[in-house]
């Protein structure tokens, strides 16, 4: 037990009962629940000092701008960025990855260049690169997985040659839980002069991340997966990379000057934030990282590891359950994909839901990985600070119901 049980009370949704059953919410990898402090921060902001930012000399607008920029500083400090101007707000990890692919890749990729991704990328770190490859003539290549669901680092090093312009890798697989060793990958990428893009959508919410030691050129993440609101995410980049990147969207706030036929761009990071930004969402995002830092990211990771070890152990005891992902909790996060005999994951999810257990079933936006695993879909349970061993017990019990209904085992 990791001693975070008291946090559960901070999350209003989890106090609910659905169909007479408590909510065992095991789908935080899709999106997390929000603590009261985050909801109140946004609500209070709208009630006390809302106005558009960067636009007015009047008190409300000044206050609003200060809150928005303070949120940027807060998110920057959460990942230990050396300066808040290295952080641009985006709609989410997907948006941020599109900005990198189109804004950096679209400018700098040449025919013959290769973009090296992995077999376990989320569509968000795959489809934008497909689009940009089609436009620039670059080719995509993929690092395979080992049989124990880790990234095959030897294959990665073999594939890394001077033609590789970009390496794109998830910080934590949203299907397998696999956490590849980013610093080592960064070193390998550096030797061939390739840019390293880390999709931190799962990593940043669950592990301490320090961009000054990570070795990445770009890191993206979404607020909604880390106790924050929908509608906002962040892009961190090394200043020199941000300078090399063209803005992806044009409009207000991102310009230095606009003539009828040409424009010049504002300084980083504002040039990447066209139009009215997600202001209240930034305030909520800052409150979310405040909450996480108060818990302590080391604690968060330890709590995940505890639940993961406990769940892996119990699942291993259920006949006909197959788990997809590393067995070693040191190489993985709290995302567990599994199947049970011939029961389709959607049927599993429906049965589990009737027991109050919320898991996700499907391809998890990682269709190529499903093909690699030779399954059409998996069921997935994922943990966060508010989960307890009771949730895992409920999962296991509900799987018992499923095996009874389907006459498995």
């Amino acid at each position, binding site marked *: 037990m990791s001693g975070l049980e008291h946090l559960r009370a901070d999350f209003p949704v989890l106090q609910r009962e659905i169909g007479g059953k408590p909510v065992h919410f095991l789908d935080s990898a899709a999106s997390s629940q929000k603590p009261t402090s985050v909801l109140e921060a946004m609500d209070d902001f709208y009630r006390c000092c809302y106005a558009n930012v960067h636009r007015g000399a009047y008190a409300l607008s000044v206050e609003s701008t200060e809150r928005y920029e303070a949120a940027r500083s807060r998110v920057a400090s959460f990942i230990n960025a050396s300066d808040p101007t290295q952080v641009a707000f985006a709609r989410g990890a997907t948006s941020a990855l599109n900005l990198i692919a189109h804004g950096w890749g679209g400018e700098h990729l040449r025919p013959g260049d290769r973009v090296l991704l992995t077999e376990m990328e989320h569509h968000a770190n795959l489809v934008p690169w497909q689009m940009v490859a089609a436009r620039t003539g670059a080719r995509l290549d993929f690092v395979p997985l080992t049989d124990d669901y880790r990234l095959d680092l030897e294959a990665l090093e073999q594939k890394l040659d001077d033609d590789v312009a970009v390496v794109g890798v998830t910080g934590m697989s949203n299907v397998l839980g696999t956490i590849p060793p980013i610093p080592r990958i960064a070193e390998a990428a550096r030797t061939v002069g390739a840019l390293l893009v880390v999709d931190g959508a799962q990593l940043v919410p669950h592990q301490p991340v320090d961009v000054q030691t990570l070795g990445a050129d770009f890191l993206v993440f979404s607020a909604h997966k880390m106790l924050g609101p929908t509608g906002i995410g962040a892009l961190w980049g090394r200043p020199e990379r941000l300078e090399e990147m063209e803005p992806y969207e044009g409009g207000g706030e991102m310009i230095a000057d606009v003539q009828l036929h040409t424009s010049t761009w504002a300084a980083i990071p504002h040039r990447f934030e066209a139009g009215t930004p997600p202001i209240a969402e930034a305030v909520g995002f800052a409150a979310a990282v405040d909450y996480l830092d108060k818990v302590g990211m080391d604690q968060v990771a330890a709590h995940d590891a505890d639940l993961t070890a406990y769940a892996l152990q119990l699942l291993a005891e259920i006949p006909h359950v197959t788990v997809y992902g590393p067995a070693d909790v040191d190489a993985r996060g709290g995302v567990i994909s599994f199947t049970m005999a011939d029961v389709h994951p959607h049927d599993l999810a429906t*049965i589990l839901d009737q027991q109050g257990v919320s898991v996700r*079933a499907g391809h998890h936006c990682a269709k190529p990985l499903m093909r690699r695993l030779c399954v059409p879909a998996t069921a997935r349970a994922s943990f966060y600070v508010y989960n307890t061993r009771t949730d895992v017990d409920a999962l296991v019990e509900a799987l018992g119901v499923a095996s009874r*209904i389907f*006459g498995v085992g």
Partner: protein
Amino acid sequence: MSLEELYREVILDHYRNPRHRKPLDRADAHAEGVNPLCGDEVTVELAVTDGRISDVAAIGQGCSISQSSASMMTDAILGKTVEEVRDLIQRFKAMMDIDHEADLGLDPDRPGAVLGDLEALQGVRRYPVRIKCANLPWTTLAQALDQLSAS
């Protein structure tokens, strides 16, 4: 509404032992259906002789609801006229309509069970998110019929 009523014997039987799953040698119509959100797939093939479904195949992958619905569908339409099949599609869709109030009875074995085995799928109505699973083969079947009339 218990889960047992959703996952009735007959559904699990059709799921595990799907009927008419072999591609036809000669198909007069062929349609592919996919549910992009959950990934379920069903391909329907029809052979028609003298205005009647003389052979049928439903091949797919997905959850027990979509696959059993496909299998039961093949049983239900074989030998029927195209008109009768269109009528059956209507009835099935009506049964799946959550706003549809009439209680059609839950026992496929009771005398007068209009849709036979298919009535076992009524339980799905209580799980709105799964209705599209049950409907997928039928929507695909309707597309295949449209092809017949087009050609």
